[in-house]
Each structure stands twice: as structure tokens, then as C-alpha cells.
């Protein structure tokens, strides 16, 4: 094959999770670039090392944890040389040398040699019965020992040690854990949580000797016991050393690559030799080494990006979280929780319930979290930790978790572990816990996206995302669920929303193909997620200049009506401020009768919805409504929807201001504007708040002395009261602040990100500073909005009903009779 000859050669040393994940990511990006050879010293395909503990505990089999079967290598034309160890890298000739002396050339080399268990240099460490805990071979030996012997000693009270101890105990051995310090898992837990953990493990029968230093391993032909620093001895038929891992970089070091505690790599995962990349536990990046899975996956992505010659991704380090994989014990830890002078702590301790939570804050942000007994909010805290969210506005309720902030969705169900398999997790798509667990185990799913694709759970409204992440964590054991720190816009790119918005401005990109070309989109025309997003970003960035791409609009925005389940549409004319007239109502009634519209319904936004309109009737329906003076209500738009008002001072005996009039003024100024997601307004004439303004995207509550402006509320998937933004004295000022706020959101919001999520992300204070305090900036924002409205305030219905815009859209191409 000619291909084989011309392709570059990629050699991978190490057939573990990091190396193979990189290869997988590379195949996604550039399937035909390399001729790939993988060397692995173990006699298996790639398996999930993290799940060795459940295998040891008898909860999973070796087959369950296989990630890539031998068929996978064959299907992808990868040469797997299992059971073969590389003994030397010859950088001069660009070859690796196998133990048998064979020389294999490479153009690019990927080192993913992982790590080795640290074996303490104790007398007797080479005795039979003394083992580490690292691979399937070790697990097999432990399982074998558990059938032949009774007493086991595990040296090391960290994550790995406790999981090994738990597994051996489950297999019927008497297990003593020896730990040098007086806190278990001291790298992840504080003394209180460590104590709670010790207590519940003791209740299960585990014995602890700590603090204690092991001095010697005793025995002649086989281990018989352990002696400690204080002179005491303990009988043992099996000693497992689980004191830690050490990056395995001997090979790299021998080849002259610069190593410290690991192979030192740059942000592009390159070693000091540009042809040689390294990922996983064997590397040291910005002085850090990692022993968890999530960072390996982040590194693999970046490395694959460069191997595929895309050349833009960088690895900035990872924040990690840990969950102990001991069934029945809920423990979660993330970030940095060592006490410090500039850190503040929020602690909740409920001894009877066995719950302990400690959240560590620094500069208004979460920097660490330790949870014991109730870990349901682990992923939620972790998300805020990684995103660096300013949490000061929710500080007083923070420790009670997401559900208490009204952020936990509508289901009210929150603890996944306690749920039965039949419990419905995704209400939109009717997916039960059991189905998700089954898909994760059988289809080897790792990420939220995988679960969404295979089960549809969390793929519609997303309010169950937290629960699905928990099911992932619960099924896989913790450190997988972590979504990438910077979320790519969609699967067609590695770039984030912010990157895309920034580059559009910096590079003056003015069409969707231009953005895709410049930012090296991975797909030909993007997809249904990114095209509408790009269309909005270009429209919002270049008003009057960018030509709206109808084919990149979701159908509702393309035909200016809402598609229904049977393929018909619904039509909602605008009713300014919720006020209508007899003649408008008469016209609506006439239209409904003339076109046999089956359902006429009053909406929650004070308007009337005509449901069940056939697509080809839309232009004629609009023409009749236009004739009666009505225009599109944009009920389908990621744009200004309704302005709900109460009757205010004009009629109400309590009204303090003309809320109806102000609502109409706002709507007349803002209609037609496109925004990242829908925007709903409310104006109430007094604090009794009949227009329910305090759960809208923007709400005004009139008071005797002026106007209170609130924003970032929601009453849908999430129930959230608004944040108070400012109080002003006049209607004009109210309009100016609200318009400026909306413009800032238009310029910074991510597509489909509602205003309350945007506020959560950038912070209330930041927004207030730029919209309220900085008056010059407010006026500039206002002017930009006003400029863009020149091009936006054309009634899309009139264009289509009487000016022939998009005529083809509403008529069939042809009608065929029976042949």
C-alpha cells in the first residue's frame, strides 16, 4: 500500500489509558495521518486502571473494565505489540529499541509509560507475598492470596491503600491498614473527614494502625509479618504496598530527555525533544504531576491536537477532584483545603447524620471542598471551583448545596445513590437511572456527552445534568465526570464561545465560512449547534453588515413561527405591554375562523397564541394580522419576547407609576433585537408585583420614589428570583439602564445562555459596574443597541406576507399526482 509508505510513523510507548486516549483523540482529528504502533508491556488491550479496585472487591470482572479490545486496534489499523517492552529510545536515529533488540523507526514518539507503585526500601521487601497495587497482574495475585491466606497488611492509608484494603476485606481477609500519619487520605481529607472515614471503615471491620512506621517485613520463604518502629509486630501472609506512585520516566531519562519528578513537558505536551511527546502519569507539567484520570484526558486532547498538526490547543493544568471507590462510603474532595491566612471556611457538621461539609473560599471563590456522607453537591462545587465563580451572593446558603439555591432543577430528587433503578432521572426523555447505569457499563461511556448521545438523558432541557453527572461518578467511580474546564462551543471545534466571539472581533470575520476556516472547524458546515450560534455572534457583532444566514437559523426563527409536534406552527402576534383592543381581538378571531385554526390560547406572557397553522398558510395569516395593525410577537426568537405589565397607576388604587406605559415604551424600543437566548421583561406598578417582574430576565418594580431595576431571574427549568441591579428616578433612565444591560448581554452572553446564567458566570458586581456605575459606558452600550435596532426593527411577518421575502420557504417545490 502506497499509504503505508508515505504516512508518518507514530510510535506510542505505553498501552494505558493516557496513551490510548491520545490515539483515540488523534484518530478523531486526523484519521489517516499516521501509521501507528503501540508498545505495551502488559499482555492485554487497554483497560481502565481506575476500576481495578472494584475488580479486586469482586464487583466487576476484568472484562468489564476493558476499554479497547484487540479488535479495536485492528479496526483502526493500529499495530499493537503487547507484551513487548521498549528498552531504549535512540533519539539520534529516531528509533526505539525493543528488549529483543529490534529497532523501530518513528517520526513522532509518544511516551505514556505511566507510573510505578513506590516500593518502600524495607528489609524483606522482595519476599513472596509482598506486592504493589498497580495492574491486573497484582490484582490476580491478591485475589489468589485471599483464597489461600487470612491476614493482610496494607501499607498506606491513601486512596489506593484503602481501596485495596476494602477489596481484600470483601474477599474475606483480615485487613490491617498501616499509615504513617494520623489522618487517612491526608492529601484529600482534613482531619475531621479523615476521622469519619476511619470510623465507618472500622465499623466494617477494617483495623488501623496509625500513626505507625513500618520498619521491616518479616519472613524467610514467604512473608510472615511486619515489624514497626515501636518494636511491635503483626502477623501477615500478604503485604500490599500502596504508599504512592512514582512517575515512570527511566526510559526517557536514559534517552537524555529532561526530567525532574517526571518527564518535563510544555503546554503543548512536548518534551525537550520536539519530536517526542509525553502524556499521563509519567509527565511533569508546570511542576505538577497527576495520578488521576481527568487530567490525563485533558492532556490527551491537547497532545492529539498537536499530533494532528492543528497546533492551537494548550494544556493549562488541571484541577482535580477525588471520590473514594468504596461502595457505601460517600466521600468527595477537590482543590486546595489546607488552612491559610487568606482563606475562609464554611463548615457544616452533623454527627448523627454522618454528614460533614467543608467549603474553602479565597477571594470570594471556592478553592476547595471536602464532603463526607452527603456528596451529592460535589460536582456542583467542583464546577464553581473550576469556573472560578464569584460565590459571594450565595455564600450564606452555599454549604447547603445546589438544591437549596433553587439551582437543582425541578425534580426535587437529589441523591442518586439512594434512587432505585426505576427512578426517572431525565423527565424530558423518560430515562431511568437503571438505563443510564446500564449504558455506562455496557457501552463503556465516560463523559456526559457520551451518556447524552446514547441514552438521551440530559440532552433536552439539561436540568438533570447534575444528576446524570452523579450517576456517572457513582457508576465509574468519581474522577471521570469532570467536564472539560473550558467547554468547547460544540463537537465541531475545540474553541470556546468566548474564543469564538473574541476572534470574530479581532480578525474581523464576517461570514460563517470565514469563522470556520480561520478557527479550523473540524466539520465541513458545522452542525445544528454551532451554526445558529455563529450566526448570532456575527449578527450581534456586525449589525447592518452581516447578512443573516437563514439556513443557519433554527426552523422557528427561519419561518417566524413555532413548530409543533405535528409539523404545524403556532402564531403569536405582539400585544404591546399585554394591552389589546376590540378590533385586534376581532381580527384574531376572524383569522382563526378563516384558516380553521384549531386552538386559540392565552399565553403566560399576556398574548394570544394561534396553534395548528399550516406552514403554507403562514404568509396569509400574517397578512391579515398585519392589516389589523399587528406584527410578529417573536414568540419563537432568541430575542425580546414579552413585556408583561400590570395596570399600574392608570387604574390600580395601589399603583405608584404608569407600569403599563413604561412596559410598552420598553417593548417598542427593544422589539426585534436578537439576543443569546430569549429575554422576557416584566413591569410591576408597585411592590405587590402583579406582573411577577422579579422572576423575569429583566424586571422593573415601580415604587413611589422611582423605579427599581432587577434582572437575572428565571421561572422555567430553574426558579430563581432576580438580582437587584439599581434604583433610578425616571422612565428614561430606566430605559437606558435596561437597554445597556441587554446590550452587554448581547455582546458577552454565550449562545443559548440565559441572562441569569450569564450573570452567574461574569458576576453581578461586574455587570453593575459597567451598566450602572460607569455612566459613559452605559451610554455607549445604549448607543450600540440603538444602532443595531435600525437594522432589526423590520416586521418579519410583513416582509414575508407582502414583500415576497423567502417566498420559496412556504410553498412546495412541486406537487406530484399519481403516476
Amino acid at each position, binding site marked *: 500500500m502506497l499509504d503505508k509508505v508515505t504516512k508518518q510513523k507514530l510510535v506510542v510507548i505505553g498501552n494505558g489509558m493516557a496513551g490510548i486516549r491520545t490515539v483515540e483523540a488523534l484518530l478523531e482529528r486526523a484519521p489517516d495521518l499516521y501509521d501507528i504502533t503501540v508498545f505495551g508491556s502488559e499482555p492485554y488491550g487497554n483497560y481502565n486502571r481506575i476500576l481495578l479496585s472494584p475488580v479486586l472487591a469482586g464487583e466487576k470482572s476484568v472484562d468489564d473494565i476493558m476499554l479497547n479490545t484487540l479488535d479495536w486496534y485492528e479496526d483502526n489499523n493500529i499495530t499493537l505489540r503487547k507484551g513487548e517492552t521498549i528498552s531504549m529510545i535512540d533519539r539520534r536515529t529516531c528509533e526505539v529499541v525493543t528488549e529483543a533488540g529490534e529497532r523501530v523507526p518513528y517520526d513522532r514518539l509518544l511516551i505514556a509509560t505511566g507510573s510505578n507503585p513506590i516500593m518502600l526500601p524495607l528489609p524483606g521487601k522482595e519476599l513472596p507475598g509482598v506486592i504493589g497495587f498497580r495492574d491486573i497482574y497484582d490484582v490476580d495475585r491478591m485475589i489468589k492470596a485471599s483464597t489461600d491466606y487470612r491476614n493482610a497488611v496494607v501499607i498506606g492509608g491513601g486512596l489506593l491503600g484503602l481501596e485495596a484494603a476494602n477489596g481484600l476485606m470483601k474477599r474475606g481477609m483480615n485487613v490491617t491498614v498501616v499509615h504513617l500519619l494520623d489522618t487517612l487520605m491526608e492529601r484529600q481529607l482534613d482531619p475531621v473527614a479523615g476521622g469519619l472515614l476511619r470510623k465507618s471503615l472500622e465499623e466494617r471491620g477494617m483495623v488501623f494502625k496509625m500513626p505507625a512506621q513500618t520498619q521491616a517485613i518479616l519472613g524467610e520463604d514467604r512473608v510472615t509479618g511486619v515489624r514497626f518502629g515501636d518494636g511491635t509486630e503483626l502477623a501477615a501472609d500478604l503485604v500490599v504496598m500502596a504508599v504512592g506512585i512514582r512517575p515512570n520516566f527511566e526510559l526517557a531519562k536514559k534517552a537524555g530527555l529532561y526530567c525532574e519528578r517526571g518527564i518535563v513537558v510544555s503546554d503543548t505536551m512536548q518534551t525537550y525533544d520536539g519530536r517526542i511527546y509525553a502524556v499521563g502519569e509519567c509527565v511533569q507539567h508546570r511542576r505538577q504531576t497527576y495520578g488521576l484520570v481527568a487530567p490525563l484526558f485533558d492532556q490527551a486532547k491537547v497532545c492529539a491536537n498537536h499530533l494532528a498538526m492543528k497546533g492551537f490547543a494548550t494544556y493549562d493544568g488541571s484541577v482535580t477532584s477525588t471520590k473514594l471507590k468504596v461502595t457505601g462510603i460517600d466521600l468527595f474532595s477537590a482543590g486546595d483545603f489546607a488552612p491559610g491566612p487568606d482563606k475562609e471556611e464554611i463548615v457544616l457538621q452533623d454527627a448523627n447524620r454522618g454528614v460533614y461539609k467543608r467549603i474553602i473560599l479565597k477571594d470570594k471563590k471556592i478553592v476547595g471542598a471536602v464532603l463526607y456522607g452527603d456528596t451529592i453537591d460535589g460536582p456542583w462545587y467542583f464546577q464553581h471551583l473550576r469556573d472560578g465563580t464569584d460565590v459571594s451572593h450565595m455564600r450564606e446558603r452555599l454549604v447547603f448545596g445546589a438544591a437549596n439555591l433553587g439551582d437543582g432543577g425541578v425534580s426535587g430528587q437529589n441523591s442518586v445513590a439512594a434512587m432505585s433503578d426505576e427512578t426517572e432521572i431525565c423527565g424530558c426523555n423518560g430515562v431511568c437511572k437503571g438505563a443510564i447505569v446500564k449504558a455506562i457499563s455496557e457501552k463503556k461511556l465516560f463523559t456526559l456527552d457520551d451518556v447524552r*448521545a446514547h441514552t438521551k438523558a440530559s440532552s433536552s432541557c439539561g436540568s438533570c445534568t447534575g444528576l446524570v453527572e452523579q450517576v456517572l461518578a457513582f457508576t465509574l467511580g468519581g474522577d471521570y465526570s469532570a467536564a472539560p474546564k473550558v467547554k468547547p462551543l460544540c463537537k465541531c471545534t475545540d474553541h470556546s464561545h468566548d474564543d469564538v466571539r473574541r476572534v470574530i472581533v479581532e480578525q474581523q470575520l464576517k461570514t460563517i465560512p470565514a469563522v470556520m476556516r480561520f478557527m479550523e472547524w473540524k466539520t465541513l458546515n458545522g452542525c445544528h449547534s454551532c451554526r445558529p450560534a455563529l450566526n448570532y455572534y456575527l449578527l450581534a457583532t456586525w449589525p447592518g453588515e452581516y447578512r443573516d444566514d*437563514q439556513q443557519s437559523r*433554527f426552523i422557528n426563527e427561519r419561518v417566524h413561527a413555532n413548530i409543533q*409536534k405535528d*409539523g404545524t406552527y403556532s402564531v403569536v402576534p405582539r400585544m404591546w405591554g399585554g394591552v389589546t383592543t376590540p378590533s385586534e381581538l376581532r381580527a384574531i378571531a376572524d383569522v382563526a375562523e378563516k384558516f380553521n385554526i384549531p386552538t386559540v390560547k392565552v399565553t403566560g406572557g399576556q398574548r394570544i397564541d394561534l396553534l395548528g397553522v399550516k406552514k403554507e398558510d403562514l404568509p396569509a395569516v400574517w397578512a391579515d394580522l398585519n392589516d389589523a395593525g399587528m406584527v410578529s410577537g417573536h414568540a419563537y426568537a432568541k430575542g425580546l419576547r414579552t413585556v408583561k405589565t400590570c395596570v399600574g397607576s392608570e387604574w390600580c388604587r395601589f399603583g405608584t407609576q404608569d407600569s403599563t406605559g413604561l412596559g410598552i415604551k420598553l417593548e417598542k424600543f427593544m422589539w426585534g433585537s436578537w439576543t443569546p437566548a430569549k429575554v422576557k421583561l416584566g413591569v410591576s406598578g408597585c411592590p405587590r408585583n402583579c406582573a411577577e417582574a422579579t422572576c423575569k430576565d429583566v424586571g422593573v418594580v415601580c415604587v413611589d420614589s422611582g423605579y427599581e431595576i432587577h434582572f437575572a431571574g428565571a421561572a422555567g427549568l430553574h426558579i430563581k428570583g432576580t438580582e437587584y441591579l439599581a434604583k433610578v428616578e425616571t422612565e428614561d433612565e430606566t430605559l437606558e439602564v435596561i437597554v445597556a444591560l441587554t446590550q452587554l448581554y448581547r455582546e458577552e452572553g454565550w449562545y443559548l445562555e440565559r441572562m441569569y446564567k450569564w450573570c452567574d458566570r461574569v458576576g453581578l458586581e461586574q455587570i453593575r459596574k459597567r451598566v450602572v456605575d460607569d455612566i459613559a459606558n452605559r451610554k455607549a452600550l445604549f448607543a450600540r443597541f440603538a444602532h443595531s435596532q435600525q437594522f432589526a426593527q423590520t416586521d418579519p411577518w410583513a416582509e414575508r406576507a407582502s414583500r415576497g421575502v423567502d417566498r420559496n420557504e412556504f410553498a*412546495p*417545490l412541486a*406537487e406530484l399526482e399519481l403516476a
Partner: protein
Amino acid sequence: MTSWIEIGALDDIPRLGSRVVRTPGGNIAVFRTESDEVFALDDRCPHKGGPLSQGIVHNKRVTCPLHNFVIELANGQAVAPDEGCTHTHPAKVENGVVWLSLRQAAAVS
């Protein structure tokens, strides 16, 4: 034998878009890709019957507007892990004119 029916001009279908052809056997969605290939499929998503003609077209795929099933235009298959298949019909472009061949109609007549 395939009998071809002329259904209209290629330019009457937007690039990365679709038009509907009405037939006694139901609507057929005719898609035009960026590179001016045309594909004809029954206008029904295998998932819940959504009108595929109303979806966003990307490369040689369309996303159903109702629940985001992605369908391959060439063979009507749902993109994995989704499952299901929509009936396809032969379609071609000659000198800017789009031709369609109706499998079902042929069977009926």
C-alpha cells in the same frame, strides 16, 4: 426501471436547505448540499415523525427540528447512537434541473 420526474430548478432549493415535494404517498424532502448534490427522503424523522425538510442541513446530514435526531441524507440512516431509518428516493441534477424517482409511486402504478 427507474422513471424520472422533473420537479424543479436546482436554484429553487437553497444551498444547505430543503424544499418539499408533495406526493399522494406523503411529503418528500429534497435537500441541496453545499456542493450542490441533491438527496430526496421521506419528510418524516424515524424518531417521532418530525418534518426533516425543516431541519438544519450540515455536510450530508440533516438535524430533525423536533428532537435533534441527525439523519444521513445518502441512506436515510440515523447517526449512531440513535437508531432508525428514513426511506430515500433516487434524485439527480441535470443542467440545473432536479429529477426525482418515486419508488413507492412506481410500485403503485
